Every structure is written in structure tokens, then in C-alpha cells.
């Protein structure tokens, strides 16, 4: 064991001291927070300026109610729309005038209600910007309310009853977990996705870091000196552990950051509602990272030992990454019904466990036996893969020249 330690320490220190690590670890969460919080902040800021809208009514009976409905709409206590006078005259003439005003910027847009607007329930919004989803959603609701109110009035419903009839449903999504119930406004979906993407990225990143370390050692011929001191198998183990420890350090910093955010949280995060990150999710986040790293890391290291340069590695690395990428692509199916037989089966396949089982854990808590089983199965796979990878490594690091073919690599595994 004494020879393992210097190798582990060297690998660990070399990684942790690198600029890329410091930037990735410290700046990573900052960037992540910025990306999640900033859009919300920016949207809130933009909301400050209400839209100036004119209503061009060709039906003759809707202008009043629609204008009133638009004028009533508020977000965060502010009026969202300023209704401008469309003027009078023939419809075509007004339309030309309004278009001109939109073009010269004195109007944000105008609403056109065709003659059959009430019966067919149709309207058109004309504006320079029609991708402001939130505002147009609000406008849609306002006009719809006005039209329905109008129809109800035609049916004989008194105006003062209108408000009661039109009351909107407020569906609150309550997430049930062992620690109690909590309202969720879509945050946990995003959180699951973000955490899964982090897992995917870091497993691929640290695997590649391990691979590049192996390639560098081989290309610089350092490996020849080192294996004259330490056996190749021990060197392999030392590298795997050292790089893994650096990855774990990064993960612990991130997990700590998330725990801190959950405890003290920024109010702006995902619409003022921070999705719950339970301690179990945090622990398993780290566990599944380690499982993913040791599983894919073995493959990455074997590829590194088989090739002579990073360019050569490209073509061999793709088959290694394929299952990882496939796992990420399966995520919508799993997230939609985390408890289905399909999701359960997929998440128990070791190559996908780190991604998909974690996804299920973050979306809902699968039975403990499934979590345990997934870990046991993955550990068994890790043992087998690392055994094979160590054998490829042992032969590969002293082989220079032509890149070996896949059957040749398999033969290396079989040679005792």
C-alpha cells in the first residue's frame, strides 16, 4: 500500500492545484446560480414597462369589455397594459394608421377583433415583438375572459355574478416526502434535470481527465520510469483513486453549496421557490457520481492506455461515451413516470444507474431495495470493468506504434 499512496497523492494534488479545477469548482456553482437566477431577474425587470396596446374592433360590440379587461391585468401590482385610443374611421384606414404607429414605436402592438370574433372566438395580435410569451399569455387570458363574459351576458347572466363564475382554478402541486409536504412550482423538475446534467458532465469530464493523464504519461515516456518502481496494476489503481478523489472534492464543494442554498436560499431562485434538496438526494448525488466515475473511468483509462495521442483517442472514446449519452437521452421517459417498470428496469442497468437511478431518486424516492440493488449491481460491474481495464492498461502503456484494434485489446484482457 505504501507505493499506492504517493501515486494517489500526486494525481490528486496535480488536479486540485490546476487552474481548471479551481475555476470549475468555485466558478461552477456561481455560474449555475447566475444562469438560474439571472433570467428570472431580467424578466422581472423587463416587466416594469407596460405594453402600449390599441384595440381595433371590427365586430362592433367588444371594444369596451376587451379594453376594460386589458386595463385590469396586473403583474406584481403594476398594470401590464396601457390601452391607447385606436381612433375612428373605416377599419382599413385605422389598421394602416396603427401599423404605422407600431413601426415608428409609439405603440407596442394592436389587437384586431374580426367581425365574427365573438362567435368564432378568434383575435389577432399585431406587434413588432410577438415572442414575449408571458405578456401574450396574459393578453390571451384577458381577451378570452372578455369574450366569455360577453357571451355569458348574452345568455342573461348579470354582470355582478360574472366574477364568481369566471374564478380561475389554482392547482397547487404539493410534493409529498418523508419530511412533510411542500408546494412545488415546477422547480423540482428543473432541479432533477440540472443535477442529472451535472452528473453526466462530471462523469464524462473526470473520465476524460483520467484518460488524458494516462495518455500524457505514456506520450512523455514517464510511465516507463514509474513502472520500474510501481507495478502497472498499482499505478492504475493509484491514478483511478487520485483523480477520483479530486472529482469527489469538487462534488463535495458543490453539494455543500447546494445544501447552503437550500438552507439560506436566494429568494429569486426559480420564482421565489427553492425546490427541496433532501439530504438523501445530496448523499446519493455524490454516491452516484463516484459510481459513474469508477465505471466509466475504467473504460476511459483503458482507452488512454491503448492509444498514443489524444487525437487517436477520439474514435475509441465514442463507444465509451455512448451508453452515458444514451442514459441522458432516456431521461424524459424516466422523469415522466419514474415508477414504471421500464424506468425501474433501465435505472437498474449499471451503465445507466448513475444517471437514471439518480434521476428517479431526485424525482421521487424509489424503494430502498432498488437503490441498494442499483449500487450493488454497479459495484459488481465496476469490479469487473476495472479488472479488465487494469489488464489492458498493463499491456497498453508500454506499447507504442499502431493503435490496436478492438479484438487486439480484448486479447490483452485475456492474456494472464
Amino acid at each position, binding site marked *: 500500500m*505504501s*507505493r499506492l499512496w*504517493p*501515486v494517489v497523492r*500526486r494525481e490528486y494534488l*496535480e488536479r486540485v492545484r490546476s487552474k481548471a479545477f479551481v475555476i470549475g469548482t468555485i466558478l461552477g456553482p456561481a455560474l449555475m446560480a447566475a444562469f438560474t437566477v439571472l433570467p428570472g431577474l431580467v424578466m422581472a425587470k423587463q416587466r416594469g414597462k407596460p405594453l402600449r396596446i390599441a384595440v381595433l374592433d371590427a365586430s362592433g360590440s367588444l371594444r369596451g369589455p376587451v379594453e376594460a379587461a386589458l386595463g385590469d391585468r396586473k403583474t406584481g401590482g403594476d398594470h401590464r397594459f396601457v390601452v391607447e385610443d385606436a381612433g375612428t374611421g373605416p377599419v382599413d384606414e385605422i389598421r394602416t394608421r396603427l401599423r404605422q404607429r407600431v413601426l415608428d414605436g409609439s405603440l407596442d402592438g394592436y389587437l384586431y377583433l374580426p367581425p365574427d370574433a365573438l362567435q368564432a372566438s378568434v383575435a389577432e395580435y399585431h406587434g413588432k415583438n410577438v415572442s414575449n410569451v408571458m405578456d401574450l399569455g396574459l393578453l390571451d387570458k384577458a381577451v378570452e375572459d372578455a369574450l366569455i363574459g360577453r357571451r355569458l351576458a348574452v345568455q342573461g347572466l348579470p354582470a355582478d355574478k360574472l366574477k364568481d363564475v369566471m374564478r380561475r382554478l389554482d392547482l397547487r402541486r404539493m410534493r409529498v416526502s418523508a419530511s412533510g409536504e411542500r408546494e412545488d412550482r415546477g422547480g423540482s423538475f428543473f432541479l432533477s434535470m440540472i443535477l442529472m446534467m451535472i452528473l453526466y458532465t462530471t462523469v464524462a469530464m473526470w473520465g476524460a481527465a483520467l484518460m488524458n493523464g494516462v495518455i*500524457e*504519461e505514456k506520450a*512523455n*515516456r*514517464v*510511465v*516507463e*520510469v*514509474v*513502472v*520500474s*518502481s*510501481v*507495478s502497472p496494476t498499482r499505478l492504475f489503481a493509484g491514478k483511478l483513486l487520485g483523480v477520483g478523489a479530486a472529482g469527489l472534492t469538487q462534488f463535495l464543494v458543490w453539494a455543500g453549496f447546494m445544501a447552503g442554498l437550500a438552507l439560506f436560499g436566494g429568494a429569486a431562485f426559480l420564482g421565489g421557490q427553492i425546490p427541496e434538496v433532501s439530504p438523501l438526494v445530496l448523499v446519493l448525488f455524490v454516491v452516484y457520481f463516484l459510481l459513474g466515475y469508477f465505471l466509466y473511468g475504467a473504460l476511459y483509462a483503458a482507452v488512454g492506455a491503448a492509444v498514443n495521442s489524444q487525437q487517436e483517442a477520439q474514435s475509441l472514446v465514442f463507444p465509451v461515451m455512448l451508453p452515458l449519452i444514451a442514459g441522458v437521452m432516456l431521461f424524459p421517459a424516466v422523469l415522466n413516470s419514474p415508477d414504471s417498470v421500464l424506468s425501474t428496469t433501465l435505472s437498474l442497468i449499471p451503465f445507466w444507474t448513475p444517471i437514471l437511478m439518480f434521476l428517479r431518486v431526485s424525482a421521487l424516492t424509489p424503494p430502498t431495495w432498488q437503490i441498494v440493488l442499483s449500487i450493488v449491481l454497479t459495484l459488481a460491474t465496476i469490479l469487473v470493468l476495472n479488472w479488465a481495464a487494469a489488464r489492458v492498461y498493463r499491456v497498453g502503456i*508500454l506499447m507504442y506504434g499502431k493503435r490496436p484494434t478492438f479484438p487486439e485489446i480484448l486479447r490483452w484482457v485475456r492474456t494472464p
Partner: protein
Amino acid sequence: MSSPRDAIRLNHVSKAFAGRWAVRDLSFSVPRGSIFGLLGPNGAGKTTTLRMVMDILAPDEGSIEILGEPAGPSLRDRIGYMPEERGLYPRMVLEEQLLFMAEIKGANRAEAVRRLPSWLDRMGLGERRRSKVNELSKGMQQKAQFIATVLHDPDVLILDEPMSGLDPVGTDVMRGALLEMSREGKTLILSSHQMETVERLCDGIALIHRGEKLLDGAVSEVKRRYGKNTLVLAYEGDGAFIAGLDGVAKVTDFGRHVEVRMADGADPQTLLREAAARLRVSRFEIVEPSLHEIFVEQVTAHGGSAAA
């Protein structure tokens, strides 16, 4: 078979790669505390031999004994190995790198830390101890590699081309260090193309070519075996006719003098008379042949280009 006198012993060692012999039936022994030179043209099997001694490669046939034990992992710590292709981590700080190399050889870290400064100073790297390896010149990297080889205080040093890439000052520093190691009782085995280096440094040599040994023994004995039929001649005038004289087997022009090898039984005195009659001779000396001469002759005689 094992004699306690010998630090390294190869018994009929063979190694093939893809059906071709890299080393074939090679035997030699290196006495303790001596410096042994492994000579041979490119591709002769020198590096393969050293790798087998190092237990990086296993011989297909034959056996290798080091310090009285069969070569194997248990001996790794007592051997220092300097490969032909230098191997240092390019982005690692020199000092940490050297300590790492000593530590994986089982050296006590504190002990290595204590020994390191004097080695760095001696190799002229004292001020570069915090530099990264890729910031060092080629010669400096070479010296750094040497420190990495000896820092754990091994009993046996295996050096593949230790002098290549060094300037004259560096060569002297390295030679001094090697001689001191030998005086301390360590056994050194080195491969080289530089015959002059080998001649001035080594006690014994083995010359291999195409994986097979052509000759071996103590340097003085090898030279004696070649007899006193080599002479050095320095002169003014056109000496081209010398090669055509009776009894002259070979002439090697060294610029300021020529080395003449006489055929067996020929008398050097006839050559002197002839030369004195036609040239202004400033030097005439009967000498032992240089290793260079022996090397070239042996290798050409065995049908190889002697790219020494």
C-alpha cells in the same frame, strides 16, 4: 552459479518480438562496484536488454540475476533506472517530481528531502528546483532525470545513454557523478554510442549486434586481445598511399592523425620506414586499438552498418 562478486548476471537470455529476436542467447556478468558498458549499433538490443534487467520486460528464455537474486519486483527499490527516452512529468515542479520518483521507489520522504538539495546543487539545478520540467533545457532535464534515478540511493544503476544531449561541461559533471557512484560501491551498467565515454569510464564492456554478443570482458583485456598491431601516425604531406602498403589492413583517418591497423604478422617497422621516406612524420606510436576501432571492425565484420 551465482557468485557474490557479480551484481548482475545474464544467463543465455533471449527475447523475441513478433517472431524476431531482439536479444539472443546473451550472457554477461557485471562485478559489484564496477561500471559496465553495453555497446552496440542502433537496434542492437541494448534497450531491450536493460528493460529485461529492469524487469519491465520478461525474457523468453534464460535468466537474470541481480545482487544474487532472480530479477523481479522485490529488487525494484534497489535499482535506479534511467531510460533512453527521458520520462518526467512536463508540468510538474522539479522538486516535487524528484521526491515523487524517490518515494515510489520506497525511499523515506524525509530522507529524500534531506538528500535532494546537494544533488540539485551538484547538477547545477539548485535555482531551478521550483521550475516546471517543461521550462528546463534538454540538458537540465537530462540531469534532473539522473537525480530521479539516484535519489533513492540504489545499489545498482541502469543508465540508457546517460550522456546523450549533454554539453561538454554537463558530460564532465555526469562522468564525475558516475565515477563517484562507482567509488561508493554501486554497480553501474550503461549503454552508449559514445566510445570515448565508454573507454574512459567503463571497467568492462559487452558489444552486442543484432541481439547477439560479439565480445565482452574488461576493457583492458578486450584491447589486449586485439594485440599490439595498431599504430598512430601523424604527419605532414599526402598520406593516401598508406592504405595501399603491404601489411596494412585498415586506415582510419581522425583528421590530425590516422590510426592504422596492421594485418596479422605484418611488421609496423616497414610502415615507419616507408612513411618516413615520403612524409614528414611528427608522431609514430604503437598503441592498443581504440574501442571505436574495435566496435566498427566487429560490427562491419558481422555485416552491419556501424552507425556509432
